[in-house]
């Protein structure tokens, strides 16, 4: 366990460093707009320009900036947005819950569908159901989110007008009961979540189906059948239980993909998560926000991996010794 903790710390440091370096490798810098005479944001006063740079610490050597950044991050202080002039922490607190809601909803739905569908398809391998599921999951996981999202928007939002087109909740709404609130949130969540679920479910389905097929060919499954166990017990207690072990690892590896997918979908549906924040910050080279967002995303991914490790430790007795 010690080794694992150390590994976690090392990855955390690597991630933090990358977070610091990557935005700075982008061409241009956050003050470019303020320094560009053709820009509307141009600041005429050169003293003001210098004090601005000083204020944001941009005039200092890179090493110094790096040290400040590390120290700040570890203290929980993610700095100040240059563009919006608000603390990054505050921005994240406002947007992160929406992103988490979207990601976790889609991830859970995709996992549930993938596991159930994959298990059933493997059990009926070669049947029409199996083939149909395989084909549709391949299509779903290869279609660009942009495309599926658009189609869903047009069909369910515009044409049928069943669901709201954008946003995370109805603006200025006052809810009489929590139930009403939940309905409103869910209606706004539905389309982005379905889009993300569709993007995620295919690979989960295929993975569960494959590992389940592998498990079904194992000797212990033959023995379990020879023991005269019921189909349900064979399928769930023995086959699926073993097939879930590789799935857990996949889930962790896919957490990052799910989060970035969510960010993208949020811009598409104008969902109030971190997606728009990231986009606008990148355009403006707003280093502290970009860094802050990626620190959070990285921490989440690392956390997901730790969780997966723990889960697979729970699921697979063979790993308990290895730890």
């Amino acid at each position, binding site marked *: 366990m010690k080794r694992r903790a150390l590994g976690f710390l090392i990855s955390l440091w690597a991630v933090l460093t990358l977070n610091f370096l990557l935005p700075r490798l982008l061409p241009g810098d956050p003050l470019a707009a303020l320094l560009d005479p053709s820009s509307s944001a141009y600041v005429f006063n050169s003293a003001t320009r210098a004090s601005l740079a000083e204020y944001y610490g941009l005039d200092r050597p890179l090493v110094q900036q790096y040290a400040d950044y590390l120290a700040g991050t570890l203290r929980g202080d993610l700095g100040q947005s240059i563009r919006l002039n608000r603390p990054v922490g505050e921005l994240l607190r406002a947007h992160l819950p929406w992103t988490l809601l979207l990601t976790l909803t889609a991830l859970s739905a995709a996992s549930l569908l993938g596991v159930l569908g994959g298990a059933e398809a493997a059990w009926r391998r070669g049947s029409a159901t199996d083939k149909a599921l395989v084909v549709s999951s391949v299509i779903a996981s290869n279609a660009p989110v942009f495309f599926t999202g658009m189609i869903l928007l047009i069909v369910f939002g515009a044409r049928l007008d069943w669901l709201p087109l954008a946003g995370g909740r109805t603006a200025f709404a006052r809810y009489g009961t929590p139930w009403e609130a939940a309905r409103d949130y869910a209606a706004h969540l539905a389309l982005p979540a379905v889009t993300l679920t569709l993007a995620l479910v295919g690979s989960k389905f295929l993975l569960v189906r494959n590992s389940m097929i592998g498990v079904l060919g*194992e*000797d*212990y499954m*033959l*023995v*379990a*059948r*020879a*023991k*005269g*166990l*019921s*189909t349900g*017990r064979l399928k769930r207690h*023995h086959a699926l*239980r*073993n097939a879930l*072990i590789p799935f857990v690892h996949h889930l962790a590896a896919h957490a990052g993909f799910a989060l970035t997918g969510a960010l993208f979908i949020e811009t598409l549906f104008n969902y109030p998560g971190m997606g728009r924040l990231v986009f606008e910050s990148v355009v403006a080279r707003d280093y502290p926000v970009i860094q802050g967002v990626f620190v959070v995303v990285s921490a989440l991914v690392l956390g997901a991996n730790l969780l997966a490790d723990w889960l697979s430790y729970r*699921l*697979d*007795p*063979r790993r308990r*010794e290895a730890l």
Partner: protein
Amino acid sequence: MSAPLLNVHDLRVIFAPAAPGQPPARVVDGVSFALDAGDSLAIVGETGSGKTTLARALLGLHPAGSVSGSVQLGGQELVGLDEGRWRPLRWQRIALAVQNAGTAFDPVYRMGEQIGEPLREHRGLSSAEATARAAALVAQVGLTERHLRAYPHQLSGGEKQRLMLAMALSCDPELLIVDEPTSGQDMLARAQVIALLRAICAQRGTALLLISHDLAAVSQLAGQVAVLYAGKLAEVGATRDVLSAPRHPYTWGLLSAYPDMSTARDLSGIRGQMPDPTHPPTGCRFHPRCTQAVDECRRVEPPLQLHNGRRLACHLGGLRALLRAEGLRKTFTTNGHLGPAQNVEAVRNVSLEVYEGEVVGLVGETGSGKSTLGRLLVGLLDPESGSIVFEGNPLALNNGSASRHLRRRIQLIPQDPFDSVSPYLTVCQIVREPLDVQRAGTPAERRERVREALAAVGLPTLDAFLARHPHELSGGQLQRVVIARALVLEPKLIVADEPVSMLDASEQAKLITLLEDIQNERGMGLLLISHDLALVRKVADRILVMRDGQIIEGGPSSQVLAQPQHEYTRALLRAAPSFDWYTTSSGGNRP
């Protein structure tokens, strides 16, 4: 008479082809046998003969539609049952301890849970009750609570094998099928498993169907044995009878290929390979590998039927005696210039048999009449009385032409190669001579056969070598040339009289191995005459001991060597060269 517990009739397991257009795999193809309650039957056969497939078919574990025929358990037909009907039968009435216990347990559950699982499922026991039962079972197979709490990966292969047995016994089945319980285990663990199985069957009265290629284990565990070859039964009978006197050529080959602490002979496999189940041979499935196959074997499938008290599937009624000599007698008269004429009874009333593909060693001291007997058998001498039947045809005592034709199928490798070949002939001429005498083929064909024969004994086939004379060859080379000459007519029986006695030890070993290989590959009979018991024991399936013109003892090599009946044999055994360490009278170590 009550019906047997298990009655299998014309069982077939045929797997659909992997790709369309290919033939299906007929892995088990018409197998019938019966097993009474409390009895034990072993199914033996080479790897790939279909044993495991057969075992699984008895539990309905193959995909629907691949099994046909009939399997009756206590009168109930099992073939064609749906999964729902199979469930209560499995483990409660028939349990299977699978071949590979190492991978037979679900890696994520503890052993106790897995052993108790059928009890909870079938008997509705609570978790605690099932665990208690599992503990009792585990104790019965000689393991402890610790093993019950362990996960599969924490246990050794032998422990898993026993836990597999414990699990198979959990619902107290009427029929226990055990697939290769002893494979891949060390001798000690193997002995324990055998003892355990014996105890279990004796205590519980469980009928045992043992699947194995471990013939020693079979001999200790099963009353009956059925030999499976390429999905068909070749021979069925009481284990003691079948294993001590195999009658089907395949059983015979299986036994001689089997390493056994009590056999002395070097191993020789059965020539050729098991056919693929997608392309079974026509007629008798064993015919491509059988040394005595006749035309009928290629065309007609032999049914499993009684031949002289044994159930065999063979057109010829099993292994044939290649050569059967009865009451042979030969007396030499010396016309003594020094004294009265004396009669030497060199061979006195000797009877012997050599079976197809068998190596018989004939041992005895100098002057015991071995060579005379050999010369009688190949027709170089005529016996005064007695008969010789070869491949079912009597050899006329005074060489008729039919008998000459037969005789070319018996060849002699003489004791002294320099004695038996003319020094003026070339290698080519020496080897070709029998062909010339028999006027077999064109000159070109003869030359080709000479080369083949030389190649078979590991000699060069270059023209330069063919043109050499005996004095230009080493002793070992010349002996090989003589063997090549014996082989060139493709004999069915070779009588080799002290074939290596003129050679040094290393050359002896090489030549004996060569002879054995040739014999095994061509499926000939070989009568090996020698005074050297140490040499004979390496290759002979059976040993005959000769003294004063009579055969005084004979039997399987292992038996003759391990329990010699005759004092003379014991003396021979003592005289056989072995390292007997020199010790001082005090017996102590050197200072």
